[in-house]
């Protein structure tokens, strides 16, 4: 029995409210509205975004979202919501889904949500930040036997640990000193991500006793730039991949949320029996998950 996706919510910067937390709140509310779920029924709320407003480190950003959506903000003695942040580079959202899936499987909670957003933390005070500001939320609950998220896998290849970095450094920027976000990406990083993703895709298929022809749809990371292009070079993969870069380029942790929503609204997701989530992140980390729809 795997966890099923109840709804997906998305958000991009508004005219006035452009911060990561604002975007996450809108995505979370959109998600709850689509599923028509009372926020007080959320057992766990995870924020998987990395680049957040003012680089806040404490408290967990998820608690701001919990408060704004009105999910058990105070203790009543009955239901409660637990919020925390989880980061794992571009794989954070899928790792968050894996953690929520676990709590659903063990019966600890009935509903869980993973929300994520990335934005330039202090606009004008970062170097090399190039991700498109966007947020996504996914709502999960326990599914029926043999469907939903059935298998997760994650691998790292630390030869490339320095190839993609996001750091706050104390340095001079525009004639003054500050804690500046410095992003760096090695040339060829996207190509290595694709190569390592494909290697692990093969291993994943073996583990799940599936063949590539059994996979109907692939929901991939939408970053780093060039990653999807590299994946498409593999024969037979292009038609299975969901690519939203035509509308929104280089979305970081929320990328799979946007791809999932595109697949759901076009009917491709519902029509697919076996759907594969394939994410990559700094490290290089590759995370995969198999989602099976009830046919």
């Amino acid at each position, binding site marked *: 029995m795997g966890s099923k996706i109840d709804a997906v919510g998305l958000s991009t910067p508004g005219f006035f409210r452009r911060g990561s937390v604002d975007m996450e709140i809108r995505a979370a509310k959109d998600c709850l509205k689509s599923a028509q779920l009372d926020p007080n029924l959320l057992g766990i*709320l995870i924020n998987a975004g*990395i*680049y957040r407003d*003012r*680089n*806040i*480190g*404490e*408290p*967990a950003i*998820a*608690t*701001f979202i*919990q*408060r704004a959506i009105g*999910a*058990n*903000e*105070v*203790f009543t*003695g009955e239901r*409660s*919501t*637990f*919020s*925390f*942040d*989880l*980061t*794992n*580079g571009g794989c*954070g959202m899928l*790792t968050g889904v894996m*953690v929520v899936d*676990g*709590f659903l*499987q*063990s019966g*600890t909670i009935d509903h869980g949500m993973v929300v994520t957003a990335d934005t330039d933390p202090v606009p004008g005070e970062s170097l090399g930040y190039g991700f498109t500001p966007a947020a996504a939320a996914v709502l999960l609950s326990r599914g029926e036997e043999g469907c939903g998220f059935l298998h997760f896998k*994650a691998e*790292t290849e*630390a030869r490339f*640990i320095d190839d*993609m*970095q*996001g*750091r*706050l*450094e*104390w340095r001079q920027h525009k004639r003054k*000193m*500050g*804690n500046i*976000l410095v992003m760096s990406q090695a040339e060829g990083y996207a190509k290595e991500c694709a190569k390592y993703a494909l290697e692990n895709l093969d291993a994943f298929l073996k583990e799940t006793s599936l063949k590539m022809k059994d996979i109907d749809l692939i929901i991939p990371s939408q970053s780093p730039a060039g990653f999807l292009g590299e994946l498409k070079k593999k024969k037979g993969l292009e038609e299975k991949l969901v690519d939203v870069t035509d509308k929104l380029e280089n979305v970081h942790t929320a990328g799979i949320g946007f791809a999932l929503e595109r697949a759901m609204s076009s009917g491709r997701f519902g029509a697919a029996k076996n759907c594969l989530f394939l994410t990559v*992140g*700094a*490290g290089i*980390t590759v995370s995969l998950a198999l989602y099976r729809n009830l046919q």
Partner: protein
Amino acid sequence: MSGVRMWGKFDLERLTGIKERRVCSEQEGSYDLSLNAALDCLRHSRYQAEDLEMIICCSITKYKDGMTYVWEPPFSLYIKEAIGAPRALNFDIANACAGMLTGVMIMNDFIRRGVIKCGMVVSGENLTSASRNAVPRVKTILSGQLASLTVGDCGAAVILERSADGKAKLEISNFISLAKYSDLCIGGPCRNAPGAEMTTDARKIHQVAIANMPSITEKALKESDLGYGDIDHIVPHQTSMRAIHSGDKRLAHHFGVRAKNIIVNLQEYGNTASTTHFLALYRYLNEKRFKRGDKMMLIALASGLTVGFVIFNMDDLVDRYGIKN
């Protein structure tokens, strides 16, 4: 602290109960603290690094190579590579001072479901910069950065394993976020100095905690089928002596029984954020102050406002620490 210039009489030691703290050298960061704690933890365990199937890094601070804060790649990957744990699934979580106990809660779920057999929860808190940056700003006892003066540096790691008989030995109970109070303590990079700064409404946090802790604790104990008097050692989050004592009094009044033992190491280490509970356990284990079968309760109380309980029976861990080792 000698640099603090406040109006009126000010005795931080008397106010907080903190007499000394540990401070990182300039070359050390959260990474070094985490790594050293991870290696020390492995030495006290029956595991090799390659046995670990999961590593969760839980620190608020993620400083590496001096005061460079690392957002990506995940900090846990650096630890995984440094100790040599190729099999371990790794990711970072952050939940303020409840970070390590949140990590324990997550890992416990993976172990109980049989997904993994053992893993490590690790944290390294290099908080001195928050303290240093608060010094010129604290002018009165009501300063929002007063709490920053109480923090200390520490690394801690804990290995969790599936029990030999398959029976659950760890009770995880009532992890709750009282998000109405999420803005009472906010920390992030300092605007005009290296490292961090933190603004806290300590008085309000204390009021909310005192008002809510009895009923939340009661629910947690009920879920574990325990009474307050059944707990041999309580390890609260180490904030200030006054807060711990008033919390103790409030719980004693609520349950009608005094706690058998409340472990406080604030005097020697200050508030070491997410590592406080395991630092206290480490010290007591080394001093041989636990015995097998003792019922332990670790209480998380963190910005967010997050509350959580981890309850377990002390086992052969007592034999692996102390003078003999």
